[in-house]
């Protein structure tokens, strides 16, 4: 090894950082080379001198000052960290969660199947063509149109088909909506109303025939109606009848004020199980109006005949005129009777109730609630699933719409955090 290399190793030798081989070769060289040896000694002296340097004593107030500063730091950290750190976390996640939650609630309210906004309200129907051709019944037609689109259509159809015939086919249809809307309108315009004859036929199954019978009678009388016909049938118990069921039957034909028609049907339905249910609403408005029109015409005729009679002089003429007058008057009376009859039918709807007695709860196991349980369960289940699916779809749409806002929020949050970090670093590095 040459002197240059050896000189570079002096420090390491002094610090015992040489390998065994290096140490041996170093010592060998040093033995012989005075130059290197002197270098070694001078460095050794320097090291010795530096080693002998005493440590500085700790200043007296060092510890107390340090304690003070540590406490200050802790206070500052608490102030800075807790509100801001929590605030940062708080704002980002809570705002996102809040947006989604609000979205879910809103869509649930507006879009769910149980919402009030979902019902298709078809109460308002389009205005039917006002058959305005000078007839006095056009006003009636309009009123009818506003109330019930179907009705108006039929009216106009009949009108065009030569309604003066007065023979309208029986219309067997459940006029639930018509009846409801008729109730909704003020009934202070009797002449303007539709003339509909309501009738129904209900078959119910009850536990106690006599009780049900009496209930119906009471209800009818309370409602201001009357029983037109009634009938009961009690079969004798015979040895051929193995079941202890007594197949008793009852029948009532009741007339009820037409306003109470629906309520009565509902009440009867609640008294037992409905086996059969049939409702009719026969609209005789056209015929009625036609007959009314004819009556008016005939009355005009009557007037004229009376006028002529006053002027008549010859007995022969007077006799002829009287004959004519009688004819006309008979016609008028006939028609007026028809109208009266109709009035009564319209004012008092008829309900036929057939009652069958079944003592099922004692001998038969009631399987009613479980009938179609499977499909009922299925339906309810599917309904819930549909609700959830619809809700999820709406939430996803809402979330997609909210994404731009969320992105803006995240950007703002990141900018704020960056700025905040810089401030913190500046503080620490002072």
């Amino acid at each position, binding site marked *: 090894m040459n002197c240059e290399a050896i000189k*570079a190793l002096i420090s390491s030798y002094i610090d015992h*950082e040489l390998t065994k081989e290096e140490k041996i070769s170093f010592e060998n060289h040093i033995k012989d080379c005075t130059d290197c040896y002197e270098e070694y000694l001078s460095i050794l002296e320097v*090291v010795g*001198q*530096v080693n002998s340097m*005493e440590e500085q004593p700790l*200043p007296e107030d060092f510890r107390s000052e340090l304690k003070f500063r*540590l406490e200050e*730091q802790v206070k500052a950290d608490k102030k800075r960290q807790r509100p801001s750190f929590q605030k940062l976390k708080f704002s980002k996640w809570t705002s996102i969660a809040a947006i989604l939650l609000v979205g879910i609630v809103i869509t649930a309210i507006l879009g769910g199947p149980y919402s009030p906004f979902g019902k298709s309200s078809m109460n308002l129907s389009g205005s039917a063509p006002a058959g305005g051709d000078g007839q006095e019944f056009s006003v009636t037609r309009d009123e009818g149109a506003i109330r019930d689109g179907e009705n108006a259509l039929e009216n106009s159809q009949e009108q065009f088909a030569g309604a003066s015939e007065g023979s309208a086919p029986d219309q067997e249809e459940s006029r639930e909506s018509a009846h409801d809307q008729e109730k909704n309108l003020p009934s202070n315009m009797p002449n303007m109303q539709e003339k509909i004859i309501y009738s129904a036929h209900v078959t119910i199954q009850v536990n106690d025939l006599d009780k049900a019978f009496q209930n119906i009678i009471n209800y009818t009388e309370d409602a201001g109606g009357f029983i037109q016909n009634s009938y009961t049938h009690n079969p004798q118990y015979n040895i051929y009848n193995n079941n202890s069921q007594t197949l008793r039957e009852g029948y009532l034909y009741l007339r009820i004020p037409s306003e109470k028609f629906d309520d009565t049907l509902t009440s009867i339905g609640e008294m037992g199980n409905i086996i059969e249910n049939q409702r009719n609403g026969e609209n005789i408005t056209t015929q009625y109006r036609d007959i009314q029109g004819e009556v008016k015409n005939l009355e005009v005729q009557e007037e004229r005949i009376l006028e002529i009679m006053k002027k008549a002089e010859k007995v022969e003429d007077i006799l002829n005129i009287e004959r004519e007058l009688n004819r006309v008057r008979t016609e008028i009376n006939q028609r007026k009777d028809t109208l009266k009859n109709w009035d009564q039918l319209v004012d008092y709807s008829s309900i036929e109730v057939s009652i069958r007695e079944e003592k099922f709860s004692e001998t038969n196991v009631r399987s009613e609630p479980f009938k179609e349980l499977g499909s009922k369960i299925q339906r309810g289940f599917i309904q819930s699933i549909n609700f959830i699916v619809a809700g999820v779809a709406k939430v996803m749409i809402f979330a997609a719409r909210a994404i731009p806002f969320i992105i803006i929020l995240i950007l703002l949050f990141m900018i704020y955090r960056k700025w905040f970090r810089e401030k913190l670093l500046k503080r620490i*590095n002072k």
Partner: protein
Amino acid sequence: MNEMEQMLIGRCKNGDISAFEILISEHERKIYNIAFGIVGNTEDAKDIAQDALVKAFVHIKTFREESSFSTWIYRIVMNTGKDFLRKGKKNLSIEDTDYKAEIKDDRPGPLEKVEGMEKNKEIHEALMGLKEEYRNVVFLKDVQGFSYQEIAEILDINVGTVKSRISRGRYMLRDLLTQTKEL
């Protein structure tokens, strides 16, 4: 890293100031002296040391148990000192150095006392004359007695770099000292 240290460090992570004070009590002197070795006067050394310790307390949460606590803390001190110098608060003018030497009981006589103090001041001034990177390694090795490996960890440099810097630093120091002798 003994158990006592570990327990104290755990407490410090929870913000326990007293635990921290106990933890650093055996290192305080060295920390202060390292700082003093960098700047050469008590005021700045105090600032640096205290800054470093507060920093250490704040960042103790990030301290991993596997590393050595003393090396970690000395490194913080060195870095704090470096930042301090970089900020231009260079207080290395020799006139400002208020070098104090601890006076041991076995030092005989006032004359030798003064002589000893004089000598120390000389060496200290010479050290301050060294460039920062050489001064640090020589200081850590010869004043504080760290191993090459420890110095490498504290200054975050290779052991080889430590070796060469120490060697050259000592040479430079020797030259400085012989110069003053000749004056």
